[in-house]
């Protein structure tokens, strides 16, 4: 391994990201940094470019302009596997694709898969791999599911397993694209609590602004592909900003104890 100068982690930096599809711009000049070791909420209406922006960071969509840097290094300049060792993803498609393929993967198959970023070709799984997988499954409280078929699981169990896979990758940065879809409220909170406890750099695309307020440190708001605000979550998810981005009226409530705020929403009458 080449000698590397120690550099303070700088987080995941989106620098002037623009993504075009034909003549349409999906993301326009997005510019922000998800701080290292913190959980960043990525919020915005449907079709505002949240998923697309995340995809530029896990190398599914190459930005037409701009660079994505992880701790100062351009993600699109490094080899694929090197990037995959540093960024783990819980993508939106994962559940449905495995279900429809019908190849009978077990929970272990699904989670062990993550370890392939550390191996090449035909090599067998090591004890270290297995223990990482066991660790990840237990972190999301899914150890008892190890021997089940993935398709047999409930929606919530599947999301746990997919989170375990992302953890088993051993990356320092975690991207989650609407991880709380199809989950009941208790497990929505459980999942984000787990992510927060990990202490990793994380970006979570979320629809529920109150979950963002409760579990995220930082927030970035997208609207029609443009980043309209970013900063500490309490300063970004305000009544005025919600009105601008989503076109709904929001009222702030302070929870007992006075530390935390939540939002209640009303339809904006024209």
């Amino acid at each position: 391994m080449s000698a590397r100068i120690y550099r303070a982690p700088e987080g995941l930096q989106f620098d002037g990201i623009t993504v075009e599809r034909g003549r349409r711009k999906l993301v326009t000049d997005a510019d922000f940094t998800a701080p290292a070791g913190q959980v960043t909420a990525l919020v915005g209406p449907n079709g505002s470019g949240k998923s697309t922006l995340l995809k530029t960071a896990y190398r599914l969509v190459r930005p037409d302009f701009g660079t994505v840097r992880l701790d100062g290094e351009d993600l699109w300049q490094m080899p694929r596997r090197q990037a995959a060792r540093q960024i783990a993803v819980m993508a939106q498609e994962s559940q449905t694709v495995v279900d429809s393929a019908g190849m009978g993967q077990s929970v272990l198959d699904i989670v062990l898969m993550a370890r392939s970023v550390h191996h090449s070709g035909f090599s067998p799984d090591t004890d270290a791999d297995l223990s990482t997988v066991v660790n990840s499954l237990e972190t999301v409280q899914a150890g008892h599911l190890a021997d089940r078929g993935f398709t047999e699981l409930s929606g919530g169990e599947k999301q746990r397993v997919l989170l375990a896979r992302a953890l088993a990758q051993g990356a320092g940065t975690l991207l989650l694209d609407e991880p709380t879809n199809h989950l009941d409220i208790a497990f929505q909170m459980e999942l984000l609590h787990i992510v927060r406890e990990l202490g990793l750099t994380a970006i979570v695309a979320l629809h529920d602004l109150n979950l963002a307020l409760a579990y995220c440190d930082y927030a970035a708001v997208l609207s029609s592909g443009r980043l309209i605000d970013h900063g500490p979550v309490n300063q970004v998810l305000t009544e005025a900003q919600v009105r601008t981005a989503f076109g709904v009226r929001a009222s702030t409530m302070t929870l007992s104890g006075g530390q935390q705020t939540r939002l209640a929403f009303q339809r904006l009458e024209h």
Partner: protein
Amino acid sequence: MRGGLHGTAEQPAEPSVTETRDESSSPPELQTSVTGRRVAATRRWVLRFQRLIVVLLLCGTVGIVLLSVSTGPISVSLFDAGRLVLGHLIPGVPWMSDGTYTGLEDQAVWQFRLPRVLLALLGGAGLALAGALMQAVVRNPLAEPYLLGVSSGAGLGAVVVISFGSAVVGGLSISLAAFLGALVATGAVFLCARQDGVVIPTRLILAGVALGSLLSAFTSFLTLTGDAHQVFSVMFFLLGSLSAASFGQLALPAIVLAAVLVFAMFNARGLNALMAGDETATALGVNVHTLRLGSLGLAALLTASVVAVCGGIGFVGLIIPHTARLLVGSDHRSMIPVAVLGGALFLAVADLAARTVAAPTEVPIGIFTAAIGAPFFLWLLRPGRTRGGLAGLLRRHRETSA
């Protein structure tokens, strides 16, 4: 929590050391946690189970080769057949020159039966491997080697030669015309399945079905408007037959099979990831487009090289990969070797049946692959059977110990 998770993640791979490690040096998670102990304990059984399957398949393969070379109208015992084969491989053994065997026996074993059974092994292995690759990269359990129009292209190529004679296609033999027909058809399907320069699996399946039907229509037209006696040879090609096997035909499928096998094993982890979705695979550092295009192209080439000499043998490429998954799980690192060996053994058994059941008449082998394969597969699918692989054994272990 963080320390445990990431401490182990950074360790370099030590593939050769792990199997000989004893319990005391394995990471603590595998001993202290309930899940860890269960996973670690059953993994030993899994490795043994997989080895057992591979050994059984290898023994079966050797057995079927001996049985095939000794069975036929000129009866040769298993022992004598083995000695004859060895005699050709080892120069200067006494029994080859002292008149123990007649020329007829020697010819039956060495010139007819041995190349035939070897072609069956190669063809079965090739179709099973091609099927496994196709199913993984298009993520569809109904995918099979003929998905890309290979068999209909080969069929049309062969029928053109049978109907019009080889002169119209520049003196090509039936096999070569079939091989070229297969490659042209596959290329056409590829072109139709591209969108923005990327092959889309669903488009691929639809384009393959559409083009396959078109080519089959031409084939049927040429067959039925041609001479009546040609219909029989066309049907024989379309249903598949190994009766014309010779050593000369083995080279191409053997070389292609070896190359594709190396490719598949080297990309086994990537194939696993691809089955979980393009996004997931990308996030795991797999170059999805390249792997898919490479797998499809190589699977098509392998299928074409097999179909050119064996005809359109059905069912092997669809059923054997699924059988391998049911036996050892869906991880390609263990599933591909089992599928390749299983396909080889299966086609050799089917061919032996095809030439003995109604002897001296020979039945097209495709009838037997379906007649033996379908009931066997349905038996594997029977309700209540637990899954194969690590997870299946883990569950059985838990159920028996509970």
